[in-house]
C-alpha cells in the first residue's frame, strides 16, 4: 500500500535544505506521495529510508503471466477489495480441465470443445482462456503425452496439474515454450517444483492446508529464487474457500502482507450445479484463476458473463460509437428509432429489435455513455443532441419517411423534437422488451 505524505516525511532527513527544489521536507513528502516528485531529487536521504520507500512502492499483489503470444494471460496486481473503490484490473482466468486419462479421439474432442468456448456479448469477445491438464492417471508418461496433445490442439494458455515433480518435469519438458503455469508445489515437493519452475521460467502454484502454512511456504519458495507465484489452499469447503479467499485478499492489500501478495487459483470441486455456484462466488470473491470441469456452453457463458460484469470499470460506462446502426437489412421504408450510446442500453435495444425480425435502423446518440433517463435528467439528451445525431449520420439519405421512434421514457421531449427536426415523432415503448410488439402493432 502506498505511504501517505506524513509517513514518507518521517523517513526524510527533515533538514528543509531545499536542495530538492521544494521549500520544506514536508512539501517534498507530499509531492512524493502524489507521485509528482522523485526520491532521487533528495541528495541526503538515507539508504534505509530508500529501501523502505521502495518496498512500500511495490504493488501489494504480484502480477503473474503465463501462456505465450496472443494467448498470454495475466492475473493479480489488484488494488482494492470493492470494485467501486477503483476497479478490478485483471479479469479472472476461467479455466477448464482436461484429464490425462483421456487419449486419442476422446482427448482431441475434449480439447476442441474447450477451444470452442468463445462467445460474443455486447460487442466483446469473451472466452475460456486456459486449459488445465490434470494428472489423474498417476502416470508421468500419460501426463506428458496429454500435455503435448493439448499444446498441439489448442493455442490457449496451459496449467499443468500434478503433485508429482516427476510428472511435472516430464510435461514441462514438452511444453516449456508455452510457459505453462505449474500446479502445485507442496511442503514436501517445494524444492523440486521450484527448481523446475526456475529452470524453465514457468510460474508456480504453491499449495498448503492453511493460510499460515501457505505464507510460510511462499516465503520459502521465494527465498529460493522463484518470484512468480500463485497461491492455493488444499481442498476446502465452499464456506472455507470464500472466507479464506477474502481474508487473504485483505491481508495482501490492506495489510500489505507480502507472503500472501500473490494471485490465487481455485480448483472447483463437486457436481455441475455445485461447480457453477462455487465458481460464480469465487470469481466475485477474489480468486484470480478459477478452474472448472464443466465444459458445457450453458455453464461457461454465464460464468464468463460474471467475469465481464465484475471486472467492468465502475467509473467508466461502457460505450458504443454514436452512429447509425442497421439491424437486419433495412430499406428506405424501415423504422428508425434512437437510443443512447450507453452500451447496455444499446445492446438491449439491439437484441430486442433483432428478435422482432423487423429490419430497422437504430440511431445511437452521444449521451456520454449514460442511459436514457440519466441522460435526459442530466440534459445530455435533448432535442439538439438528437437533431445533431440525425444530421451527422446522414440518415435522411437512407430512409424516405420522416418518422422517428423515441424511447417511451422521454415522451415529454416530443414537441420540441418535432419543432427542431421537422420529423414526425412517434413515442415508442418504455421497456425495450416491448419493442417487438410495438414494431409489429404500432409501426406502419
Amino acid at each position, binding site marked *: 500500500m502506498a505511504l501517505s505524505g506524513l509517513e514518507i516525511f518521517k523517513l526524510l532527513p527533515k533538514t528543509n535544505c531545499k536542495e530538492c527544489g521544494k521549500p520544506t521536507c514536508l512539501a517534498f513528502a507530499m509531492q512524493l506521495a502524489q507521485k509528482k516528485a522523485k526520491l532521487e531529487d533528495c541528495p541526503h536521504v538515507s539508504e534505509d529510508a530508500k529501501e523502505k520507500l521502495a518496498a512500500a512502492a511495490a504493488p501489494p499483489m504480484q502480477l503473474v503471466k503465463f501462456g505465450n503470444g496472443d494467448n498470454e494471460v495475466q492475473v493479480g496486481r489488484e488494488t482494492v*477489495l*470493492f*470494485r*467501486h473503490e477503483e476497479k478490478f484490473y485483471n479479469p479472472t482466468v476461467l479455466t477448464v480441465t482436461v484429464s490425462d486419462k483421456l487419449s486419442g479421439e476422446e482427448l482431441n474432442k475434449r480439447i476442441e470443445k474447450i477451444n*470452442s468456448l468463445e*462467445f460474443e*456479448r*455486447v460487442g466483446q469477445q469473451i472466452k475460456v482462456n486456459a486449459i488445465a491438464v490434470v494428472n489423474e492417471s498417476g502416470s508421468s508418461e500419460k501426463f506428458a503425452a496429454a500435455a503435448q496433445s493439448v499444446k498441439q490442439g489448442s493455442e490457449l494458455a496451459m496449467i499443468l496439474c500434478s503433485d508429482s515433480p516427476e510428472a511435472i518435469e516430464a510435461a514441462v519438458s514438452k511444453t516449456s515454450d508455452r510457459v505453462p503455469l505449474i500446479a502445485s508445489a507442496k511442503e514436501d515437493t517445494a524444492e523440486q517444483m521450484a527448481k523446475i519452475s526456475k529452470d524453465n521460467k514457468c510460474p508456480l502454484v504453491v499449495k498448503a492446508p492453511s*493460510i*499460515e502454512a501457505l*505464507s510460510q511456504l511462499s*516465503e520459502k519458495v521465494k527465498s529460493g529464487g522463484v518470484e512468480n507465484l500463485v497461491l492455493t489452499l488444499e481442498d476446502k*469447503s*465452499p*464456506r472455507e474457500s*470464500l*472466507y479464506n*479467499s*477474502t*481474508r487473504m485478499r*485483505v*491481508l495482501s492489500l*490492506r*495489510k500489505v*502482507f*507480502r*507472503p500472501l501478495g500473490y494471485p490465487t487459483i481455485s480448483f472447483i470441486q463437486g457436481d455441475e*450445479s*455445485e461447480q*457453477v*455456484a*462455487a465458481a*460464480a*462466488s469465487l470469481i*466475485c*470473491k477474489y480468486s484470480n484463476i478459477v478452474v472448472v470441469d464443466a465444459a*458445457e*456452453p*450453458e*455453464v461457461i*457463458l*454465464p*460464468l464468463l*458473463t*460474471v467475469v*465481464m*460484469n*465484475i471486472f*467492468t470499470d*465502475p467509473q467508466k460506462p461502457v460505450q458504443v460509437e454514436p452512429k447509425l446502426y442497421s439491424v437486419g437489412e433495412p430499406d428506405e421504408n424501415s423504422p428508425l428509432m434512437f437510443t443512447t450510446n450507453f452500451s*447496455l442500453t444499446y445492446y*438491449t435495444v439491439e*437484441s430486442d429489435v433483432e*428478435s422482432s425480425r423487423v429490419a430497422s435502423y437504430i440511431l445511437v446518440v452521444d449521451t456520454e455513455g449514460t442511459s436514457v*433517463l440519466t441522460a435526459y435528467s442530466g440534459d445530455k439528451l435533448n432535442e439538439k443532441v438528437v437533431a445533431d445525431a440525425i444530421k451527422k449520420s446522414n440518415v435522411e439519405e437512407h430512409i424516405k419517411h420522416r418518422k422517428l421512434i423515441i424511447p417511451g421514457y422521454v415522451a415529454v421531449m416530443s414537441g420540441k423534437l418535432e419543432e427542431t427536426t421537422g420529423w414526425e415523432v412517434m413515442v415508442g415503448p418504455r421497456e425495450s*422488451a416491448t419493442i417487438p410488439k410495438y414494431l409489429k402493432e404500432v409501426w406502419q
Partner: protein
Amino acid sequence: MPIPEITESFAGKVNRLTLGATIEQGGTRTSTVTVGGAENVVYGGSTEDSGHKPVIAMDVLDSRPDDWPDVLAENYKDVMESPADWGKKCVDEFGAELICVKFDGIHPDKGNKDAEHAVKVTQDVLQAVGVPLILWGCDDDEKDNEVMPKVSEAAKGENVLLGTVTEDNYKSLTAIALADKHNLITEAPVDINISKQVNILVSDMGFPLERVISFQATGALGYGMEYSYSIQERQRLAALSGDKMMAMPVICDVGYETWRVKEARQQDAAGWGSAEKRGPIWEAVGAICLLQSGADIIRMRHPKAVEIVKNFIDNVWQ
C-alpha cells in the same frame, strides 16, 4: 513472519427483521423468517459475523402470466390459474420458506383487475401456505395506491412485507403498512442517495426503520448486475459505518429480471448450449453473485435455480 491480525471494528450493523406472525403472535403463519444482522462485510471476519442466512422468496403471480418461456412455465402449468395452489406447490415441492405474491394482474396494461380480486388472492394464499408472505404491487402508482391498501388490510396481523414505496409514491402504502403493522420495501433506481432519501421519507412519517427492507433495483446477469452489486456493497459498508438510514436488509428481484433476458428465454441459440439448463443457471448465477455483495432476500422463479442457490446458501451460511 507472523500473520498480521485484521482488527476492524464497525460502528453499526445490518438490522434484524422477522417476517410472518404465528398464532401466538396474532397471525396464522406456521413459520417465520428472520433476515439481516450482519456485522461485517460478506465473508469478512468470522462466520458468526454473517448474520442470518439469506432467504429465497419464490414468486407466485396473482394472474396467469402470458409471457413466460416454456422452460419456466412448464414447472407451474398445473397451478398457474390458482395462486393458492401455486404457493402450495412452491412450499411443498420446492421447499420455499417465503412466498412473494406479485400482483401483475392489477396493472392497467396487464389485466387491470380490481382490489376485490387482489384481496381474494391474498386470502387464498394465506390460507394455502403457512410461510410468511411478501405482497408486491404492480408498479403503477395510481393502481397500487388504490389496491395495495386493501391487500394490506386483508393480511392484517400476518406481519407481511409490503412493497414497494418510491421517492415519488410512498405516502399511502407507508401509512397503511404502519396501521396494519406490516413491514415495508423502499425502492430506488440503482441510486444510493435516492435509496437513503426514501428511507428518510418513510421514517419522517413515523415508520420504524427496523421494519424496512431496501430494494436497490436489480440488474440481471449481463444486464447491469454489477450496478446492483456495487450499490449493495456500498449500502453494507454504510450500514457498518453506523448510518441508520442505510442499515436495512436488502431484497433483490432476480427472478423477474432474469426471465426477460434472451440468454434465459431463447430456445434455439447456436453455441449457447442446452436451453433447458441455460435459463435456470442464468438465474442461479445472477442470484449467487448478488449474495456476494450482501443480499438478504432474493426473489426467484425457476425451481432448479432455487435449488442451486439454496444449496449454496446452506453450504456457506451457518
